[in-house]
């Protein structure tokens, strides 16, 4: 009996050690990221699936080398935080330059002058903020002034949790500031806008669902590509209940990209990463971009896809005399204008 128990005591310890070793083995192989990782924000999923396919075929032809690109999508701020906290991204493409700046300043994985490394301030495409209304448009919504009127129910995501929502906010603010030439009036304008807001979802996609599927609200403020995607979706399911409205003026929502230099270098992916982002600025890259309803920066491609992107006056953040840093501090940080809107309510 004693012998058996000794044997039994011995055996488990070996099996425990073996299983721990095995466990560590499988774990590390699961988490070691040998491949190429692209961290992006939510609405670019379909765009980059196609970009990756084309880029990889091209790379194989040129270099005779095969590899795969992994995509990670989520809210822009959340994605930036993941990279800061150690998600080994080789490249990032986010909704605001502020988020990439935050990676640069908080983790030093990206150089602070990252915007000088690629053409057009590292911004291969842009979008703008427009309205989606129900087909009849019974409330006659045509421009920004119409959606701050009393009795209009507005759907927009929360600027505190969504990068896209910050563009929405700044579009309304910028419109009013340019029209009334007064910062105070512009703030009153966004205040009226958010007093009309009935649901603040945490992200752009959530707001689209609230508006389109739950049929709440008279108007959805959203990205141009998100609105077109919603229309596309309706067309495919044979419905026709929505209409896109272009306001007279809106913001130029610039969505930049950057190589995460330090990580890419450590993983030996620097050359691929740089080529990958440069591809976005080529004719082929720009064509795919336009196909996915983001506005291309290449003038020729922009011209050929012009009917997809109606002309409207676009102002940029710098036209408002702001940078992301000042805008963030003034409007969205704790105690900023956005907080004040809900305090007085």
């Amino acid at each position, binding site marked *: *009996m004693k012998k058996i128990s000794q044997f039994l005591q011995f055996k488990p310890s070996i099996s425990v050690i073996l299983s721990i070793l095995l466990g560590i083995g499988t774990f590390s192989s699961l988490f070691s990221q040998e491949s190429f990782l692209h961290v992006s924000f939510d609405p670019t999923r379909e765009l980059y699936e196609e970009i990756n396919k084309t880029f990889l075929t091209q790379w194989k032809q040129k270099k005779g080398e095969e590899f795969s690109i992994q995509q990670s999508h989520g*809210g822009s*701020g*959340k994605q930036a*935080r993941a990279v800061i906290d150690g998600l080994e991204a080789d490249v990032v493409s986010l909704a605001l330059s502020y988020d990439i700046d*935050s990676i640069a300043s*908080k983790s030093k994985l990206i150089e602070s002058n990252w915007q000088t490394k690629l053409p057009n301030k590292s911004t291969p495409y842009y979008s703008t903020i427009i309205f989606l209304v129900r087909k009849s448009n019974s409330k006659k919504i045509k421009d920004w002034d119409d959606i701050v009127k009393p009795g209009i129910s507005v759907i927009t995501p*929360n600027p*505190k*949790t969504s990068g896209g929502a910050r563009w929405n906010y700044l579009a309304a603010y910028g419109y009013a500031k340019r029209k009334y030439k007064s910062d105070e009036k512009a703030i009153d304008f966004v205040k009226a806008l958010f007093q009309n*807001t*009935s*649901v*603040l*979802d*945490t992200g752009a996609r*959530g707001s689209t*669902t609230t508006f389109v*599927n*739950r*049929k*709440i609200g008279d108007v959805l403020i959203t990205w141009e590509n998100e609105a077109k995607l919603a229309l596309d979706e309706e067309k495919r399911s044979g419905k026709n209940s929505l209409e896109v409205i272009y306001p007279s003026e809106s913001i130029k929502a610039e969505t930049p990209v950057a190589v995460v230099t330090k990580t890419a270098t450590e993983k030996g992916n620097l050359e691929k990463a740089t080529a990958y982002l440069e591809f976005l600025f080529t004719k082929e890259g720009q064509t795919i971009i336009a196909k996915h309803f983001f506005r291309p920066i290449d003038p020729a491609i922009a011209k050929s896809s012009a009917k997809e992107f109606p002309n409207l006056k676009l102002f940029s953040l710098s036209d408002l005399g702001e940078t992301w840093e000042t805008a*963030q501090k003034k409007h*969205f*940080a*704790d105690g900023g204008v956005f*907080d004040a809107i*809900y*305090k007085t*309510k």
Partner: protein
Amino acid sequence: MQIETRPYKKIHLGISLGLTVFYSSAVVIIPLLGLFFHSLGIGMTGILEVFTDERIRSALYLSFTVGFVSAILNLFIGFLFAWVLVRYQFPFKKFFDTLVDLPFTLPTAVAGIALTTIYSQTGIVGSAFAKWGIQIAYTPIGIVIALVFIGFPFVVRTVQPVIEELPKELEESARCLGATPFQTFYKVLLPELWPSLLAGTGMAFARSIGEYGSVVFISGNLPGKTEILPLLIVTKLEQYEYEKATSIALVMLLTSFFFMFIINLLQERASKKLA
């Protein structure tokens, strides 16, 4: 052959203490200490500042009131469900019994989206209520529904085994001695069930306060109206304000711990009374 019996009460300082310390450190103590020190980063005044903020205060109030209401609802719903599951036979009983665990395993975001679909003005249930002018989704009522959904297995699963253990003779003798059904329930059964009901409700309550996934979809997230505490934590994180986020978390943690502690005390007193 002699079988050696070792008393449980003997103190083992070797492997047992080592394992306990190691696992509780790795999983509970170190992360919580991290949370604690992280929030100390902004200093005591910083922490106080967080709680003088109007938005945080109203979220705090909302989270705790809806948590409380849903916990009380779960107390009744969960108890009734557990009672029916144990005491009655009906078709597909096993199936319904399994269904109780669903909120444990279902990603709460899925639950949130499903509930919002049903309870919004266009949904099956929501549209019926909308005719009466009652809005469910995007109001605190919707939040309570989501919390009842995620909390009720806690009550069912803690009370169920206790009901199973109740000797049938107890009730029978009470009835024989002339007690009415209500007296039997109130004076004989309830004192036995009370501690487990309290424990289940307490867990459901603690879970409700921290629930994020299912609530953000159904609540509408309007600051000061339907904005819950966990969402505020997320908004702080989104602004890279880790300290503020962790200090809100810390207060939630301490409050929950306080409630759990009280509940444990009550439970202990109740079981002592029984003995």
